[in-house]
């Protein structure tokens, strides 16, 4: 290739380049062409930018439209026709399982309430989405949350609307059969006002055991810590799955909060406990030393799954489902889901998961962990407060509960003469569209609970209590978890680990004693 030859881009350009014009004219022509090309480039970029922006605008039309109409709706009285109401929701759990089903979910809410709803359910990074949405001034009418610590932060930062008057004035929500009165304490700020409304009934965690393995090895349900040790050891050493190999573990856990059922033996509760107005962390007290030593013994003897430090809950569940471990600690609802999963695979399976109460403390008391509730909050900048309130009442009514549990009529279930039948899609969705369980005692479940769930929930009601969420817990948790896991895995003597925990917690002003 001859690099000195003129580049022929187009006949017109080459014609211009070859024309016998004066030098100033050539220069001017070149400048014009360059200018033209630049303008075209700039123009196309601007046009594409405008296109994007207009397309974004149209995508978010629901939101924008709701903003535009919001002031009018919010200002209307409760007797205003619901059809005029609009609602924009940011949700982590509630809604359809797929984008298509979400659309039908929104339409179903509109059909049932008359409120025109837009639900945004991010596939991941929900906390990040909430933060960016609120920080950038986006306006939602309802935001779902599941962490009481975060709710307190939201209250402190003025994010949430005070809903006390609404809840107390609401015929539905103030009814103790719909939501037990004492439950509202969970959603109160320091000032005693209510800042959120429950989205579902939240259960708790407890040890879940392979009942069929217990029966096979002729073991009784464990009650004390020694009983637990014997059962777990037998699960590890006596080939409970009958495959002739020593390939089972007694126990698997994921995260420190999961061990509450065992720490119960020493009367220790997770997170903060206020004692005479002072902040204490029982897991960082001297009383926790023998418990960590007990876990270290399990690790040393190969009874505790060695991956417990890096396990996530899915891995832990899979070990349980694949006959690798005889006991895990997890949510009440999962007892049923674990049983159901195995039964769906093999209707003749002997697999039987069962919840057991934690280990008895010195006074015979058992401490289980009640999970933070899922809740709806109305942001302070919400534009459709009235629609949000109407939706919250609907959510706790029978149609709302059926929608949140079974799903959409015609899609997830059919109803004939008051009898509900789940469709194949409904079976796949496991009767959970954000509300697997609810508070409202007036609404009876259309189907029986999955096997084992009721017994697990009874244990939660009997023994589980909420944990105290103080804002400094996230910093304290790092220190406690770090040393506790080291002690449990035997890489650090338990006494040293607790001593170090106390030292660091005090130095960082995270405990008072």
């Amino acid at each position, binding site marked *: 290739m001859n690099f000195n030859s003129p580049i022929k881009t187009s006949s017109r350009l080459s014609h211009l380049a070859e024309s016998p014009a004066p030098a100033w004219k050539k220069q001017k022509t070149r400048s014009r062409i360059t*200018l033209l090309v630049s303008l075209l480039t700039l123009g196309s970029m601007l046009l594409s930018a405008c296109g994007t922006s207009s397309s974004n605008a149209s995508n978010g039309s629901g939101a924008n439209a709701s903003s535009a109409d919001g002031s009018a709706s919010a200002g209307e009285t409760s007797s205003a026709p619901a059809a005029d109401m609009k609602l924009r929701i940011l949700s982590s759990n509630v809604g359809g399982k797929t984008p298509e089903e979400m659309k039908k979910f929104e339409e179903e809410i509109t059909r049932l309430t008359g409120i025109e709803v837009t639900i945004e359910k991010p596939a991941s990074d929900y906390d990040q989405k909430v933060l960016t949405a609120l920080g950038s001034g986006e306006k939602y009418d309802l935001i779902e949350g599941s962490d009481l610590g975060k709710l307190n932060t939201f209250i402190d930062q003025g994010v949430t609307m005070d809903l006390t008057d609404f809840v107390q004035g609401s015929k539905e929500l103030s009814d103790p059969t719909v939501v037990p009165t004492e439950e509202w304490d969970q959603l109160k700020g320091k000032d005693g006002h209510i800042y959120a409304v429950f989205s579902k009934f939240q259960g708790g965690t407890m040890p879940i055991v392979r009942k069929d393995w217990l029966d096979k090895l002729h073991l009784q349900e464990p009650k004390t810590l020694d009983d637990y040790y014997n059962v777990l050891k037998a699960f590890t050493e006596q080939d409970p799955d009958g495959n002739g190999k020593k390939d089972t573990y007694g126990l698997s856990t994921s995260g420190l909060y999961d061990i509450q059922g065992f720490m119960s033996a020493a009367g220790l509760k997770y997170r903060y406990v206020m004692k005479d107005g002072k902040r204490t962390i029982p897991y960082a007290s001297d009383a926790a030393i023998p418990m960590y030593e007990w876990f270290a013994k399990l690790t040393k003897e190969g009874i505790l799954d060695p991956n417990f430090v890096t396990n996530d809950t899915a891995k832990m569940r899979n070990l349980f489902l694949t006959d690798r471990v005889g006991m895990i600690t997890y949510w009440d609802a999962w007892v049923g889901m674990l049983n159901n999963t195995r039964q769906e695979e093999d209707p003749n399976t002997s697999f039987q998961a069962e919840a057991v109460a934690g280990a008895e403390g010195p006074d015979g008391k058992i401490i289980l962990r009640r999970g933070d509730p899922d809740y709806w909050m109305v942001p302070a900048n919400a534009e459709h407060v009235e629609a949000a309130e109407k939706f919250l009442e609907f959510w706790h009514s029978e149609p709302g509960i059926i929608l949140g549990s079974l799903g959409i009529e015609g899609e997830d279930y059919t109803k004939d003469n008051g009898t509900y039948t789940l469709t194949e899609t409904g079976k796949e969705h496991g009767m959970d569209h954000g509300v697997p369980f609810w508070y409202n005692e007036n609404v009876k479940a259309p189907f029986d609970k999955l096997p084992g769930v009721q017994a697990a929930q009874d244990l939660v009601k009997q023994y589980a209590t909420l944990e105290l969420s103080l804002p400094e817990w996230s910093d304290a948790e790092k220190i406690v978890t770090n040393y506790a896991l080291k002690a449990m895995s035997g*890489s650090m003597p338990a006494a040293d680990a607790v001593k170090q925990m106390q030292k660091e917690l005090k130095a960082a002003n995270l405990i008072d004693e």
Partner: protein
Amino acid sequence: MLKTWCKYGALYLMMVPVICYFLVYGYYPLARGLQISFQDYRLIGNRPYIGFDNYGTVWHDPNFWKSLTNTLVIGGGSLVCGFLAPLIIALSLNEVLKSWFKKTAQMILYVPHLLSWVVVGGMWIYLLSPDTGLVNLLLQRTLDIPPVHYLAESGWARVVMILVATWKDMGYNCILFLAGIVAINPSLYEAARLDGATRWQQVRYVTLPQIQSTMKVVLLLNTLGVLRIFDQVFVLRNNSTAPDVDVLMYYTYQKGILDFHVGVAAAASMLVLIFTLLLTLIVRKLTRFDEV
């Protein structure tokens, strides 16, 4: 001046979109971050200016300094290993005469760079597992070393972070070095051979000096990323090793996204920015980057 504008006006005009892009997506967030770092940032409502309070909070937070130490150890380790390992491999591959072997090796080395940290992290968590992990099985069967939970032991956590990061990006840096080596004038090797230089002497006196500029670029590019490690730590950390591996970007993530203390997170980000600037300037000075 006006004449220059008339002459090159069109070119300046072409730069407008690029400048706009950087202003909107680069400098505006930076300016906003700086502004937020001086505010008591509430998610909704007024956001009063509080001077340097957020910086004070960060400065007096022992976790910040611990995170900085972790960042420098893990980032520094990754920088050194991530520089030397691909260089050694590139020099070795250059000596391989079979081109099919060279190409295959390059491809295998490059593949991990294409995978996201989620995939790589999951893979290594599985490989390093104490009961079923391949690494422990091999060590146990060949050298009779008892299983170690590498990702849960404080002593190993940082080493694993450095080695996995090096493994992941080795192929990419290796290609950069190989590109530099290929561009070397063959007559230099011919002259060296005529002077009786051995293979090693050719590498020492021809290859290495000739790819010096590539080495400087790779080193500087990697330096820019030292304080920005996040994905890897996010995937591979656990509560047992958190104090040893939580880095500055994770500290910022925790303060901002998990704890909703946006002002403090912004102040920490600004400090990370300043540290990166300082680090880059030091590396530029030490490598005499401008004398390429």
